């Protein structure tokens, strides 16, 4: 049973790790721009960035098929020029999980950036430091706890992703079958022992992550 659980567990950790990194890079960028610059259409952009949090995962999955599917906007180019398709691959699952996890990073990072006193950034500028240095030496160090906490929530969310992943990457054992998909299969097949074991593994990992991020959040506002 452990062997049956190990394959989806390792795949889930791999997918969730890459998805979280992707969500962190893009989420932090968007959060910083929206928190610090008066970009036109700021409110609409904020709503779009939050959308994956409230939309049904199947709808997100459908959007993803439109974009990265073999006849999708990006997918067609990838297929014609590079001969690759993200559909039904673990990389496709990464994309699906990253989109679902993105709002958690974005929300956390935006609140963290907005919590950084602008006066400190101003002080750094009068001390002769350029904006890149101000960001790396003042803004990011003062916001990193909030960003990290958002990243951990995103990781937990990415681990549990089901709907969008199913639509984009399918449910191929050993290839794209993550923990949540394996649980579904086990229950459908009446393998209660396996289902129980998979559910327990998933729960323990998620609880560990939430406890960890809760501690970070607490320190962030102390």
């Amino acid at each position, binding site marked *: 049973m452990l062997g049956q659980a190990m394959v989806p567990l390792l795949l889930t950790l791999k997918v969730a790790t890459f998805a979280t990194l992707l969500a962190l890079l893009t989420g932090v960028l968007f959060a910083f721009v929206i928190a610090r610059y008066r970009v036109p259409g700021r409110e609409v952009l904020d709503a779009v960035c939050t959308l994956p949090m409230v939309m049904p995962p199947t709808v997100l999955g459908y959007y993803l098929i439109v974009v990265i599917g073999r006849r999708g906007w990006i997918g067609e180019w990838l297929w014609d020029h590079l001969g690759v398709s993200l559909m039904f691959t673990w990389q496709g699952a990464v994309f699906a999980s990253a989109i679902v996890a993105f709002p958690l990073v974005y929300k956390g990072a935006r609140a963290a950036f907005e919590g950084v006193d602008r006066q400190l950034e*101003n002080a750094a500028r*009068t001390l002769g430091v350029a904006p890149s240095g101000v960001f790396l030496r003042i803004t990011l160090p003062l916001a990193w706890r909030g960003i990290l906490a958002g990243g951990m929530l995103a990781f937990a969310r990415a681990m549990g992703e089901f709907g969008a992943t199913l639509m984009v990457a399918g449910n191929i054992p050993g290839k794209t079958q993550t923990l949540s998909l394996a649980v579904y299969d086990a229950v459908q097949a009446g393998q209660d022992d396996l289902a129980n074991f998979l559910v327990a593994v998933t729960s323990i990992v998620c609880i560990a992550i939430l406890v960890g991020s809760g501690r970070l959040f607490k320190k962030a506002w102390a």
Partner: protein
Amino acid sequence: MKLAVDIRKTLHAMDRTFTLDVRFTSDDDLIVIFGPSGSGKSVTFQAIAGLVSPDEGQITLGGRTLFDSAQKVDVRPQARRIGYLFQDYALFPHLTVRENVGFALGDPITGHLSLEAGQAVSELLRSFELSELAESHPKQLSGGQRQRVALARALAKKPELLLLDEPFSALDPLLRDRTRRELLAIQARFKVPMVIITHDPADVELFADHLILFENGRAVEDLSQSARGAASSDRVKELLSRLY
């Protein structure tokens, strides 16, 4: 060092608008800007430091143009070589006293101090009596210590002008008098011209070689030392009483 300010800026906050229209020139080493809160003193400082762009006008310091709307010059704050002591000191909470003081001297991206810069920081810490607190964080310091850290930090890169926004208002009244004298000693040692914002008449008495009175976004009176003379202290008192 001659400072010339001639700027206009309209600020909007909620449903109110505030118009700043300020003009003054001085080559004194101690300039005091005095006026009630909301008279535009801090915005003027931010414009001199480059943190706020005026709508129009010029700012020059010792022949260097820092801002000129006609010529589209707006030197970035990091290139102005102007020190700024913020009212609440704005110390970096995540850095030690040593890292705060050495902030301007470290590597622009990593903050790493070279051997030479490290020695300069140690020297500054010694002269501001902060050596023992070098590894403390701002949270652990008293008000007076925080101010010394902020001053040392602002002076580390030898600015051509130091702006001090109500430098004594956050201090214990008992400490203010001593700190005023210390600031005069620092001015003499670093030979840096200072502009001080205050609404405490005691600061005017001690610091104003050149006194500029602000009211409703304008520099309404401008008294340099030569113009003031000894007899003018009555005139200053009269002006101060009018503002209160």
